[in-house]
C-alpha cells in the first residue's frame, strides 16, 4: 500500500513521495507465518505420535488429513458439508437482512429504538445457543432448527452495528452538506449510509464466527447430518481422526470466510484503512 504526500503542486510542482512497503520484507513476514504453522503442525505430530501415542485421545495432523481424504473419496463428507453450509448460509442471509433492517428502524426512529433496544440488548447478552434444544423440539432435527439458532446468533451483532454506524454520522460532515442545502434524505444517502457501511461490514464479519458456532452446537444437540453430527458421531466411536476432520474443516471455513470478508472490506471501504 502506498501513501502519497504532496505539497502545493501549483507552486512547487507535484512533489510526491511514495512509501511502498518493501516486497522482500512482506514476503519475509509471509514466510515467517508459514514456518510458524509448519512448526506447530510438526510439534503436534510429534506430541500425538510419540508423547501421547494413543489414538483414543489425540490424532496427528497426518491422520486427520488422511481421515478427511477417506471421508471425501467414500462420499461421506460431502453431505455433512452441504447440510452445514446450507444451515449457515440460510440463517446468515436471513439474519443479515433482518439485522440491517432492524438497525435502520432503530436509527431512524426514537420510538422504534425505545421499543426494540431492551430486546436487542437483552437477547444479545443471553447465550441463546442454550435455546437450541428448544428449537429442535419446535422445528424437529432437520435444518430449520439450526437455521433459527444461526439467525439468533448472527442477528444481534449485525443489528447493533448497523444502528451504531448510522448514528455516528459526523456532525461536521452533516453541517457541510447542510451548507449546500442538502435535504435530510440527501444527508442520509450521501453521508449516513456510506459512513455506516464499515460498521455494518464489521457486524457481518463478527456474525461469521458466531454463525458457525451456532451450526455446530445446534447439530450436537440433535441432527441427522452436518459437520456437528460428524463430530459427535466420531466422538461416540472414539474416532479421533474423523472428529478432528470435522473441526479442521470448520476452522478452515471460518478462516477463509473471515479472510474473504477482510478483502471485501478493503475493496468496498478502502478509506477506513490506516
Amino acid at each position, binding site marked *: 500500500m502506498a*501513501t*502519497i*504526500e*504532496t*505539497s*502545493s*503542486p*501549483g*507552486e512547487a510542482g*507535484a512533489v510526491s513521495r511514495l512509501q511502498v512497503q518493501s516486497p522482500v520484507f512482506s514476503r519475509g513476514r509471509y514466510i515467517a507465518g508459514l514456518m510458524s504453522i509448519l512448526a506447530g503442525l510438526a510439534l503436534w505430530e510429534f506430541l500425538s505420535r510419540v508423547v501421547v501415542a494413543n489414538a483414543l485421545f489425540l490424532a496427528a495432523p497426518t491422520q486427520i488429513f488422511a481421515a478427511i481424504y477417506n471421508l471425501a473419496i467414500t462420499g461421506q463428507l460431502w453431505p455433512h458439508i452441504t447440510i452445514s453450509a446450507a444451515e449457515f448460509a440460510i440463517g446468515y442471509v436471513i439474519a443479515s437482512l433482518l439485522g440491517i433492517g432492524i438497525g435502520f428502524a432503530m436509527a431512524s426512529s426514537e420510538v422504534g429504538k425505545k421499543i426494540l433496544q431492551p430486546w436487542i440488548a437483552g437477547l444479545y447478552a443471553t447465550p441463546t445457543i442454550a435455546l437450541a434444544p428448544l428449537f429442535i423440539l419446535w422445528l424437529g432435527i432437520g435444518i430449520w432448527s439450526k437455521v433459527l439458532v444461526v439467525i439468533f446468533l448472527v442477528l444481534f451483532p449485525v443489528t447493533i452495528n448497523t444502528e451504531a454506524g448510522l448514528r455516528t454520522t459526523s456532525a*461536521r*460532515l452533516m*453541517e*457541510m*452538506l*447542510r*451548507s*449546500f*442545502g*442538502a435535504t435530510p434524505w*440527501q444527508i442520509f444517502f*450521501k*453521508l449516513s449510509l*456510506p459512513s455506516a457501511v464499515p460498521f455494518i461490514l464489521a457486524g457481518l464479519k463478527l456474525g461469521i464466527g458466531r454463525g458457525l458456532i451456532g451450526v455446530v452446537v445446534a447439530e450436537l444437540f440433535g441432527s441427522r447430518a452436518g459437520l456437528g453430527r460428524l463430530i459427535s458421531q466420531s466422538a461416540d466411536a472414539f474416532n479421533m481422526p474423523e472428529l478432528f476432520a470435522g473441526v479442521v474443516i470448520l476452522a478452515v471455513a471460518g478462516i477463509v470466510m473471515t479472510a474473504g470478508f477482510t478483502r471485501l472490506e478493503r475493496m468496498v*471501504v*478502502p*478509506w477506513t484503512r*490506516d
Partner: protein
Amino acid sequence: MAKLALTGLTKRFGDLEVLHEINIAIERGAFISLVGPSGCGKTTLLRIVAGLEPASAGAVLLDGRTVRAPGGDRGFVFQSDNLLPWRTVFDNAIIGPEIAGRTGAEEKNRIRDLLRLVGLEGFENYFPRQLSGGMRQRVNLARALAIDPDILLMDEPFSALDAQTREIMQTELMRIWEEGRKTVLFVTHQIDEAVFLSDRVLVLARRPGRIREDIDIALSRPRALAVKRASEFVAYVDRIWRLIEDDVRASVIEEHP
C-alpha cells in the same frame, strides 16, 4: 446597494451574548476579513451568514433579501476540510451541484476547470487520505466555488496548515480571487493574513462580540508576498494588533488560568 448587509445582528446562547448588534455593509467584489481574539464570535457570525445558525435578533441581507437558511448563493469554506473520505477529489468538488441536481457534462467540465484553477489538475481521482493538508484545503475551496456562489464565506481555512504552506495558500487564494473577484468574507485570527488578503479588515472585540474598528487596507493589487515586509503593511498589522492586544491577553488568561 450593498451585496451583503448585516443589520443589528445579535446572537445569544442562553444568557451569554456572543454578538451584539453587528452592522456591516459589504460592497460587491470586496474581500473582507474579520479578525479578533478567540471568543469574539467571528465564526458564529460567519455561520449565521451561511444560514447554519439562526440569529437571535437582526437580519442578514443578501442583495436586499433576508436570508435565514443555507443556499446556493453562499459558498462555505470550512476550517477543517470536511471532505467525504469515500469520494475522490472530483466527486467531493461536485457535491454542491449534485445536491442541487446538476451533474451534466457541462457541470463536470466546469468542475474540471475549477480543479485546474485551484492547482489540482491530475489529482481528480485521488482520495482525500492521499492528499496533504494544503491540497485538501484546495479541494475545500474548489467545492465552495463549484456552486458558483455570489459570496464566499471562509472560516479560518488555513489555520491547520504549517506556516510555509499557509503563505503559499494565501498567494494562491489571491490568484484565484483575482480571476473571478467574488465577494469574500474571511475569518482569521492571523492579522498578517487578514491585511495581506483584504480590502477591509473588521476588527472584533469580545464579550460580547462587536465591531471595534473598520480598517481600509490601501495596498495596491496584485500583492506579492514581499508586501508583508513593506512598512505600510507592518503599520497595518501593528495597528490591528494594538486594537486587540488587551482582548487577546484576557482570552489567553481565561483559557489557561
